[in-house]
């Protein structure tokens, strides 16, 4: 039926876009200044004879496959990529796949927590402010959300550190583990949660600001509609009118904005991870860029590409769930 064919079409489209972006990415990184081989060999140059160094240089270049034609390099790279071989990290001197797991887990954990916090707070808050539109409560929340939305994350991070780690030292400010602790199981998980509190708090602030405003705007639009009056005229309870009739209709814009926000979260946490010294994807991306560690950078870039493309399809599917008028066709 329409749905199956549509999804196949979308899949073909994704593959197509994926390859085009991969070519662009690869070209951009090749065009970047800096020699990854020199970066990888590092300080050895000063302690070796020039011709021995040259031999080692050539050998390393050969191993990394950098002495081939750029086009061949691309095909080798994309072929490896698709078979799950993400290349060799010149910085860590290990396979990318081995070093990328732990940071990815950390980043995803962090983002999931932030997401849950943001949704739990911003959706009810957005609804409540829309219902009490222009009241004192609404106006107060409006001011707070615009403040939260407009202050950059690193400033909020510094403020949070000042408040909860310096003035009232109840939370740690860096890492995800207490140094030297060898707790396991539940103890370890609790320790991690404790470390994550501040970063999650900071990440949530701007998310809450933005999403609350979107939910409020979408709800106000819907609450003006005639069918809300119909629902009231039916004699439904006010809760049913707001949560079932209004909120379900407000979901479409909310789905759009939250999808993009979720995709953005994975990239946006670079700042937070750097401030709180969390070994996550963002920090890794920056470090690798500094070190010209292209395998790692490209792998992560492609991760973001896949994330965005899949996010788009998921958004389309979510639309059909949310709104019966939307059909997946062409």
């Amino acid at each position, binding site marked *: 039926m329409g749905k199956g064919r549509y999804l196949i079409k979308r899949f073909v489209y994704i593959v197509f876009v994926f390859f085009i972006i991969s070519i662009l990415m690869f070209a951009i990184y090749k065009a970047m200044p800096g020699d990854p081989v020199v970066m990888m060999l590092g300080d050895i140059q000063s302690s070796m004879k020039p011709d021995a160094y040259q031999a080692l240089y050539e050998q390393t270049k050969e191993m990394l496959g950098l002495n081939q034609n750029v086009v061949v390099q691309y095909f080798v790279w994309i072929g490896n990529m698709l078979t799950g071989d993400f290349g060799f990290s010149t910085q860590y001197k290990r396979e990318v796949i081995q070093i990328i797991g732990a940071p990815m887990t950390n980043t995803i954990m962090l983002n999931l927590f932030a997401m849950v916090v943001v949704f739990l707070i911003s959706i009810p808050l957005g609804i409540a402010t829309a219902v009490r539109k222009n009241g004192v409560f609404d106006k107060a929340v409006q001011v707070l959300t615009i403040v939260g939305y407009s202050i950059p994350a690193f400033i909020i991070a510094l403020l949070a550190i000042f408040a909860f780690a310096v003035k009232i030292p109840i939370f740690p400010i860096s890492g995800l583990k207490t140094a030297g602790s060898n707790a396991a199981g539940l103890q370890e998980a609790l320790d991690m949660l404790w470390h994550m509190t501040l970063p999650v708090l900071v990440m949530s602030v701007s998310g809450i600001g933005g999403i609350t405003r979107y939910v409020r705007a979408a709800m106000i639009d819907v609450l003006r*509609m*005639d*069918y809300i*009056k*119909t*629902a*009231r*005229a*039916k*004699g*439904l*309870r*006010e809760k*049913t009118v707001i949560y079932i*009739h209004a909120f*379900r*209709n407000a979901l479409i814009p909310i789905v759009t904005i939250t999808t993009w926000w979720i995709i953005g979260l994975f990239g946006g946490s670079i700042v937070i991870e750097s401030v709180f010294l969390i070994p996550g994807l963002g920090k890794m991306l920056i470090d690798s860029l500094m070190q010209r560690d292209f395998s790692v950078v490209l792998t992560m870039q492609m991760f973001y590409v896949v994330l965005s493309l899949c996010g788009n399809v998921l958004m389309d599917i979510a639309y059909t769930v949310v*709104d*019966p*008028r939307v059909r997946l066709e062409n």
Partner: protein
Amino acid sequence: MSNENRNVLLEVRDLKQYFPVKKTKLREEQRYVRANDGITLDIYEGETLGLVGESGCGKSTFGRTLLQLYPQTHGEVIYHKDGREIDLKSLPKEEMRVLRKDLQLIFQDPYSSLNPRMTVGQIIGEGLTSHGIYKRGDPAMRDYIFEVMENCGLATYMFGRYPHQFSGGQRQRIGIARSLALRPRFVVCDEAVSALDVSIQSQILNLLSDLKEKQKLTYLFITHDLSVVKYISDRIGVMYLGNMVELAPTEELFENTKHPYTEALLSAIPVVDEEDKRERILLEGDIPSPVNPPKGCKFHTRCRYCQKKCTEEVPEWINIGNNHYVACHFPLNGEKG
């Protein structure tokens, strides 16, 4: 038609509904749109009361305020039920919610008044479960909804479909089925047929009349279409700028028009027969602003019989016999020629 021996269903006393106008300056005095500016009338059980007037004269507001969909500014709406007199304004929200079962509304716009996210079955059934007529998921409810749908001229296969899959006429029937499923006593039909084309209009009007006979309904029929209102109403009320200017049984209103505004309105009905042709009275100027209505009789700015008294004194709402009410200092006399 005499109304004295009929039971009053709703008593409206000096009903006012003002909407605040948004201030443009900080220290400006708060001004109001006077959508309903003191309306008094009785609605009798089993009648169809037509309500006509230009757009923006407060007809729809009156219907909605009656049902307490807007918090009324002033006045009383007294609902007679089982010998009790209930002032709707003073009711707590939850009790009003329960009473909504009796007092229903059919909306003007069949496109925007149905929740796009719900199937026809859900739209009709929701009111039933929320008033405890049926339990959620009761198989008998489905049968009942089918019955209501059939009564309203909807095929039962439409049960699981969404509103956007229907035409305007079908949607209007869904709206009617939705309100009548609750077995109300009183229904406000707010321009219920205005959005439809003429052939569908007459179908819906006939449907409404049939259902009225079957279920002993009382209608408040709001429209700007005089031929529709003449066809369906027992009594007709004419509104101008938030006030009722004339109210009379249909025959009486057409034959013995008392208010100059009504006269002008009636003269605008197109006639087919050349012999029936009467002088067309054109109302000059626009309808004045309801924020700042004219002093005295609100109609004086456009009335061709206007005299000095009209600009100074507000005319009283008086019964001139035959259940004929009018608010005019100088009611027209004599039969129309």
